């Protein structure tokens, strides 16, 4: 390889020296400025006086002159806008200071570093903000959970109280029905008792509505679809409402179109409640004229349509927009007819849950037409007889475990009337003893007894290898409570109060 020609080397050196704007300072052993050259003013070092202490004129040298070997300080700003690479070179008698311009290099590096630092700061602030958002979200989540727990706790309390409230009127209804059956009952006594029964039923309906509203608020409504004899359901409703209509002198008619199958798959309890709410309202507000009920079934879409038309006072457009709202949304209407409004709100909820809708057409003084529909497929299950085969039940023993004497006695009467042999217990310890001793074919177990609860008794019995069906009787209609009853070993769960028909049908089903 050839060496660089001398004149080229000289050219490079002169160019480099021009670019670096070299300055030098010579400091003697005593620390005085011995000489200087180049362009110290370029670096903000004016008025240098030789023979004077260097560190007084060149403050940046404070503490730096005693270096044992050459040192380089990069990007030093001594004032002004120029940057230098400062080289400190010790020699035997002097210390040489070289200043080489690094302004351009500094500015390029500074630009890059600025971007990096700004990006780092931005990222940090973003992460802080995200953290703050996450903290706020968690805080809101905790608040929401607390509120939900509070609401649920409140709802559970209300449900519990209402359920307890339902038991006495339910017993009253049952006992009045039993008294009515006594042949010797006087006509007037029967009338009085019927009145007691009707009013108690109204009270029960109100409690049911409040309970359903609470359950809807908690978002815990579950549908229990089963094969329902729709005509029997309507016959039953007619038997309940016809006497009321007659008392008021109203025409009360139910028209079931031929298209409606005998049995449909639907939640009988909920659908029945929808109809009761609508018919009760129609009869309540209609003083003269009619209440007409029509049912039709669309086989193509499995839709059951129902219409309840009345010749009552009608409803203004403004009120129509409000009557399906929840009870808390309209103080005016809810304060006048709280249960009617609550009933309509719940009825629409149930209709929607059943895949349908509920609406109203009405004008003041022109009556009202409440029409709705639900999804209900035809069911071709053969209907079962409700009557009991006494020969089959004669030797069948059922253990009733309920701590309320009224309910226990009532259930005993129904079951004995159905031909079953009944033994009873009013607490968990006695129940365990009787169950293991008599090995009944079925147990009806109250889950919320004081002392040993039904849950604990069932667990104990299953542990002791008791294998017969156990039907839980629960005051709660919440799905999770029913599920828990099944988990501890029950075969089925009934929600109190329980009608005699439901009781006998369920017992029969599990004794097959």
């Amino acid at each position: 390889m050839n060496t660089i020609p001398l004149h080229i080397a000289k050219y490079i050196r002169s160019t480099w020296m021009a670019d670096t704007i070299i300055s030098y300072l010579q400091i003697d052993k005593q620390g005085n400025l011995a000489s200087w050259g180049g362009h110290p003013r370029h670096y903000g070092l004016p008025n240098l006086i030789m023979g004077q202490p260097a560190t007084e004129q060149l403050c940046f040298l404070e503490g730096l002159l005693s270096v044992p070997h050459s040192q380089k300080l990069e990007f030093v700003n001594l004032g002004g806008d120029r940057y230098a690479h400062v080289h400190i070179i010790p020699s035997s008698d002097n210390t040489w200071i070289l200043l080489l311009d690094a302004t351009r290099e500094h500015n390029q590096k500074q630009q890059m570093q600025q971007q990096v630092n700004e990006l780092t700061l931005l990222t940090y602030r973003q992460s802080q903000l995200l953290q703050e958002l996450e903290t706020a979200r968690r805080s809101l989540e905790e608040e929401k959970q607390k509120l939900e727990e509070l609401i649920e706790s409140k709802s559970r309390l209300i449900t519990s109280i209402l359920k307890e409230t339902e038991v006495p009127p339910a017993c009253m209804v049952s006992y009045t029905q039993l008294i009515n059956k006594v042949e010797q009952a006087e006509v007037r006594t029967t009338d009085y008792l019927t009145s007691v029964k009707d009013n108690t039923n109204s009270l029960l309906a109100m409690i049911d509505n409040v309970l359903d509203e609470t359950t809807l608020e908690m978002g815990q409504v579950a549908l229990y679809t089963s094969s329902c004899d729709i005509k029997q359901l309507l016959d039953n409703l007619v038997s309940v409402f016809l006497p009321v209509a007659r008392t008021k002198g109203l025409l009360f008619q139910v028209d079931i179109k031929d298209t409606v199958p005998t049995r449909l798959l639907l939640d009988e309890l909920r659908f029945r409640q929808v109809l009761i709410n609508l018919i009760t309202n129609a009869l309540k507000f209609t003083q003269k004229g009619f209440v007409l009920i029509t049912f039709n079934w669309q086989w193509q879409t499995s839709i059951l349509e129902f219409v309840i038309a009345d010749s009552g006072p009608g409803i203004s457009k403004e009120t129509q927009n409000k009557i399906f709202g929840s009870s808390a949304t309209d103080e005016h209407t809810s304060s006048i007819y709280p249960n009617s409004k609550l009933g309509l709100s719940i009825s629409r909820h149930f209709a929607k849950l059943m895949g349908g809708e509920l609406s109203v057409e009405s004008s003041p003084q022109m009556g009202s037409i409440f029409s709705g529909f639900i999804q209900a497929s035809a069911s071709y299950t053969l209907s079962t007889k409700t009557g009991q085969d006494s020969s089959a039940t004669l030797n069948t023993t059922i253990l009733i475990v309920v701590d309320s004497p009224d309910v226990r006695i009532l259930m005993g009467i129904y079951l004995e009337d159905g031909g079953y042999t009944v033994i009873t217990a009013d607490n968990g310890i006695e129940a365990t003893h009787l169950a293991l001793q008599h090995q009944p074919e079925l147990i009806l177990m109250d889950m919320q007894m004081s002392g040993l609860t039904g849950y604990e008794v069932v667990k104990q019995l299953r542990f002791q290898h008791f294998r017969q069906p156990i039907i839980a009787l629960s005051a709660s209609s919440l799905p999770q409570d029913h599920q828990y009853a099944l988990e501890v070993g029950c075969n089925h769960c009934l929600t109190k109060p329980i009608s005699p028909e439901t009781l006998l049908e369920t017992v029969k089903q599990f004794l097959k």
Partner: protein
Amino acid sequence: MTTTTVQKKICMIGDFSVGKTCLVARFVRQSFSEKYLTTVGVKIDTKPVNLVDGRQVKLILWDIAGSDALSTTTTSYLRGSAGYLLVVDGTRRPTWDSALNLQKAVSTQIGNKPFILLLNKADLTDQWEIKQTMVDEQTQKGWNLLLTSAKTGMGVEEAFSLLSTKMLDAGT
């Protein structure tokens, strides 16, 4: 007879964007700018300080580029330093951790020199991320900590005066 004013080199140490340059600008020129301009290398300033006890000192301020650790370049700037100000951005917790690490590294390089930890940006109290327990822990170790704000000037003069006093007392 001429009296020579004592000169002391002090370094501004700390992570980037903690406010070292702003503190120097406030102390030397009584100025402040919201605009952030990162320092590359080192900026050298001087300022004479008259202490309350009558002593005088000329401070040579080395405003060193911020970093969370000492580099070879940064280490070369520390030579001859009589003390240093360790600066933390009170609104960024990581700069506290950087300062603690830097203090150990600086101490290893230049020995046990006087220093003061400055919790800067004290005007931004709503974004403050330094807990009192952290401060107490360092105070118990004998550290001097001051709240400063280059923006308002809070604690700035006190910081340089205190460090000057400590350096003169220590004879560093």
